């Protein structure tokens, strides 16, 4: 397990300020208006150079949307994105994406994210062509080197997507993105759909590449064991907001937000009898993003909720040197160590 606070003192390379994303919502001709959904609501986040930040939350909590907005492929409705201190938001999609070439995104389903008609060599070459990197000989050499770096070899050039296994596809997807020489890589569920032994090798590869190429990762996942294993810091999202953010070791050992506690308690473990007392009290399904409860969005499901929780949306407040939590009752909740 990697420990560590916010990579000590290093400047942030990516920063999000009060990001807000409204999805859908349109007025059809002569139809009833469909209100938009607030997929991301006022998220502020910094990513320090060289760190791995985990973004954790239930399905539909907006973590993938947040990743895509940071990437620039999805437009933000409000807020700013800063890359190296420069504002790179507020432009149209093509310009936003171009200004953020240093950020690249690895899709969740590697098999579906590669064109079935193209050979692996062609797929890898294409990214370089699009970015105008090198002539044919140089590209060829770089692809061979990158295939080696992700644990494949040059013979994979001629293969097709359907001929590869899940783990191999993950490696190809990583190779394609890393060929573009990004500094920040957004990894969306890098291990979903892989069996445990393959997961372990892919995770090792991800960490190895980070060290070798000096990358910064934003890792989107709902698999807590993966996050705990490779992340320096963790941000917990619930219905479009970050409810807790802090060093992974601290968040996992002493979760402050009731939602984090329920998430950790819900994680399956192999040792019986290690449940966190009083934390498995999550009630019902997450509410619809169209009709958010007033105040703290988590209060209807919260074991510690009270009537005052409905009054205002709690803001992130410091609960430690680098640990922030958005819950007005966090002091009232006992810190219970958990093990995953």
């Amino acid at each position, binding site marked *: 397990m990697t420990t560590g606070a916010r990579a000590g003192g290093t400047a942030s390379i990516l920063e999000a300020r009060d990001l807000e994303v409204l999805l859908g919502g349109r007025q059809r001709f002569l139809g009833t208006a469909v209100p938009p959904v607030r997929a991301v609501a006022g998220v502020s986040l910094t990513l320090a150079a060289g760190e791995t930040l985990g973004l954790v939350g239930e399905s539909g909590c907006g973590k993938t949307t947040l990743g895509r907005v940071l990437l620039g*492929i999805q437009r933000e409705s409000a807020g700013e994105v800063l890359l190296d201190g420069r504002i790179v938001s507020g432009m149209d999609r093509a310009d936003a994406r171009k200004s953020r070439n240093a950020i690249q995104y690895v899709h969740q389903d590697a098999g579906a994210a590669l064109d*079935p008609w193209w050979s692996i060599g062609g797929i890898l070459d294409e990214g370089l062509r699009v970015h105008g990197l090198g002539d044919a000989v140089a590209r060829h050499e770089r692809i061979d080197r990158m295939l080696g770096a992700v644990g494949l070899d040059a013979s994979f050039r001629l293969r097709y997507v359907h001929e590869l296994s899940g783990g191999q596809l993950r490696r190809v997807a990583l190779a394609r993105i890393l060929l*573009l020489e990004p500094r920040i890589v957004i990894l969306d569920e890098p291990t979903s759909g892989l069996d445990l032994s393959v997961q372990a090798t892919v995770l090792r590869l991800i960490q190895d590449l980070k060290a070798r190429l000096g990358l910064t990762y934003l890792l989107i996942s709902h698999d807590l064991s993966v996050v705990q294993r490779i992340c320096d810091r963790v941000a917990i999202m619930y219905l479009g907001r970050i409810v807790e953010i802090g060093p992974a070791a601290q968040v996992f050992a002493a979760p402050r937000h009731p939602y984090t506690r329920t998430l950790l308690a819900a994680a399956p473990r192999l040792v019986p009898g290690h449940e966190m007392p009083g934390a498995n009290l999550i009630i019902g399904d997450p509410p619809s993003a169209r009709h958010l409860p007033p105040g703290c969005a988590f209060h209807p499901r919260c074991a510690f909720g009270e009537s005052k929780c409905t009054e205002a949306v709690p803001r992130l407040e410091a609960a430690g040197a680098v640990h922030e939590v958005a819950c007005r009752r966090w002091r009232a909740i006992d810190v219970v160590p958990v093990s995953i």
Partner: protein
Amino acid sequence: MLVLKKFAKDKPAVLGAFIVLIVVVVAIFAPLLAPYPGDAAASHLLLRLKPPSAAHPFGTDNLGRDILSRVILGSRGALAIALLVVGTAMLIGVPLGLIAGYSRGWLSETNMRITDVFLAVPQLILALAIAQLMGPSLQSAMLALTLTYWPFFTRIVYAEARRLSASLFIDALQCIGAGTTRILFLHVLPNCISPVIVRATIGMGFTILVAAVLGFLGMGATPPDPDWGLAISESRQYLPEAWWFSTFPGLAIFLTVLGFNLLGDGLRDIVDPRLRRSR
């Protein structure tokens, strides 16, 4: 090659490919293969309506022309119409479908509504109307067939492109910053070309059939062209005595259309990217 192996197992498809191959070879070498190449235009009234014999295996027609020669020479016209009509229809329909499928909003909507309008025009009626306007000729028949056939390609490509534009690998390409032209022609097009090829193959047979109908109605090829449909039309008044006059051109139409349809059905079964193999 896995594709060829799978195709070889599909007997009807192989038969279809065989027929199409023969028709193409016959069309290319028609003047060399026809026993009386001059019979495209010449007439020999003394040899009128002779039944099949060694000298004239398919018999002779009402002007004493060798029917075998005319069937062979007619294959050229039939194939040329099919190729030109389907080719032009693809050139119009495929790019429109790609654009309509990949774009959103007014561009896509306008495109598809225009396509729907053309799709609603009945092929034969338009062909007859154009033949009335321009005078019956092969050109007017081809124009009418093209004008009514391209919407089919637009529809197919539109549906495929729409499906593909929502797929993850297109999203991934947008994420690495690939341009629209690159995505459309190098990724969307190859992935939706299979149903287009299938449709084109079946469309060839269909076009030959409709061209024959137009010839039969006197709205397509004009005498003395060795057109199959025209020949059947001319033979009507000599039935049933001169059965060979209509039978052999009819068989030619039947076999050619059958060949293209069998081939098209066979292609439909094998167009699957999973059959692509590196080894």
